[in-house]
């Protein structure tokens, strides 16, 4: 229903808000399905960062959606045929939670039964994400880095001489500044907690990077562009993003140099489980740094640009 409302409305401001609500509802749906890590990431990214980034991009474009100029019948036909094909394919899928489904056979019993012994951490999601399927997570990190690269190439971070520290676009807001000053250390501390606690509870590099970046975005929104750029200069950010990917790839290459397969963490220490711990720690650190710098970079690119108009 929210999706239908989002399509029917032409006020893009309201649509962005509806997207935020949609993300929050999806996060609760994931919680209902017992997928806590995914719900966490969805809530942090979808309901938090994406709303802010979409609002910043609304500032660059128009607020009201332009009416379609062509007859949409052909597009409707294409979407209808594709949708019908997808629904037909889904009808053949096994029921949710069916133990004899193919996805629950093959390697999954091995992950569940031997995950704790082999990788040594209670959170199986992090174990699968960072260790068993570490190569896929490396691909995700490179995708995030590429998105940051694309934004840099297309928009670039403008260096405006009007951006001085202490000048805020919304003026001198006493209440907001006091509350943000108190909340900001807590937000950053929570981001660090999520980063390093991903082994035991819900968390990990992606959520932590997003939460950490959100703290800086909040500081930027309340205290002004100039102060935020004085704290984290844009020149650092693309180096930090590259550093994140480099840490991740570096762990893999180190394993290659020692003589084991790529991203085999047991090459990092004498005891294989100790090596797994170390490997997951380094890899999640790389992911966290990369996600943090890319999110902040995209925000700088969008937010700094609007000032020119």
């Amino acid at each position, binding site marked *: 229903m929210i999706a239908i409302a989002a399509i029917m409305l032409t006020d893009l401001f309201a649509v962005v808000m509806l997207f935020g609500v949609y993300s929050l509802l999806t996060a609760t749906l994931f919680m209902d399905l017992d997928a806590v890590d995914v719900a966490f990431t969805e809530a942090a990214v979808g309901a938090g960062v994406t709303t802010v980034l979409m609002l910043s991009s609304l500032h660059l474009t128009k607020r009201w959606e332009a009416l379609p100029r062509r007859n949409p019948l052909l597009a409707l036909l294409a979407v209808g045929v594709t949708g019908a094909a997808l629904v037909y394919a889904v009808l053949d899928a096994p029921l949710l939670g069916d133990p004899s489904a193919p996805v629950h056979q093959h390697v999954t019993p091995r992950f569940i039964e031997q995950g704790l012994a082999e990788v040594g951490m209670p959170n199986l999601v992090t174990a699968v994400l960072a260790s068993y399927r570490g190569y896929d997570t490396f691909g995700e990190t490179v995708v995030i880095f590429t998105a940051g690269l694309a934004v840099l190439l297309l928009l670039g971070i403008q260096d405006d001489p009007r951006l001085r520290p202490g000048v805020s676009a*919304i*003026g001198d*807001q006493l*209440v*907001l500044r006091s*509350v943000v000053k*108190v*909340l900001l250390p*807590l937000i950053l501390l929570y981001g660090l907690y999520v980063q390093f606690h991903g082994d035991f509870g819900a968390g990990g590099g992606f959520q932590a990077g997003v939460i950490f970046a959100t703290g800086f975005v909040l500081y930027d929104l309340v205290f002004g562009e100039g102060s935020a750029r004085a704290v984290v200069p844009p020149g650092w950010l693309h180096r930090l993003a590259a550093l994140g990917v480099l840490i991740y790839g570096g762990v893999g290459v180190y394993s290659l140099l020692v003589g084991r397969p790529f991203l085999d963490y047991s090459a990092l220490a004498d005891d294989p489980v100790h090596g797994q711990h170390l490997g997951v720690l380094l890899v999640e650190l790389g992911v966290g740094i990369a996600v943090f710098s890319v999110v902040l970079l995209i925000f700088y690119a969008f937010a700094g640009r609007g000032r020119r108009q």
Partner: protein
Amino acid sequence: MTVILGWVSGLCLLFGSVLCITGGIGLLRMPDFFSRVHASGVTETLAAPLLLIGLALQMEWSLDLAKVAMILILILATNPTATHAMAKATLHGGQRPLEFDKDKSTGGEGSSKP
């Protein structure tokens, strides 16, 4: 003691739910943006903490209770700030609160869009 705690907790939960419902009705039916923001602010700042206190009274002293207490403090700190920020942003955008003109008997004039 636990009986009293149970009753108090139930009352808190009941009041919190009633305030949530009235907040929702206010959000939909109020004529002006600022009254709507006030209604939703009541939901956030009073109803959610009451619900949390009602839940906390039923828990024993544990890490979960400490987490609920932290969530309570965070909600009490951030939700009024968010309401304040929304109202300030609307004022910055140019809307003014709907005012009642006391001379007219039916309705009133206002300079803001509902």
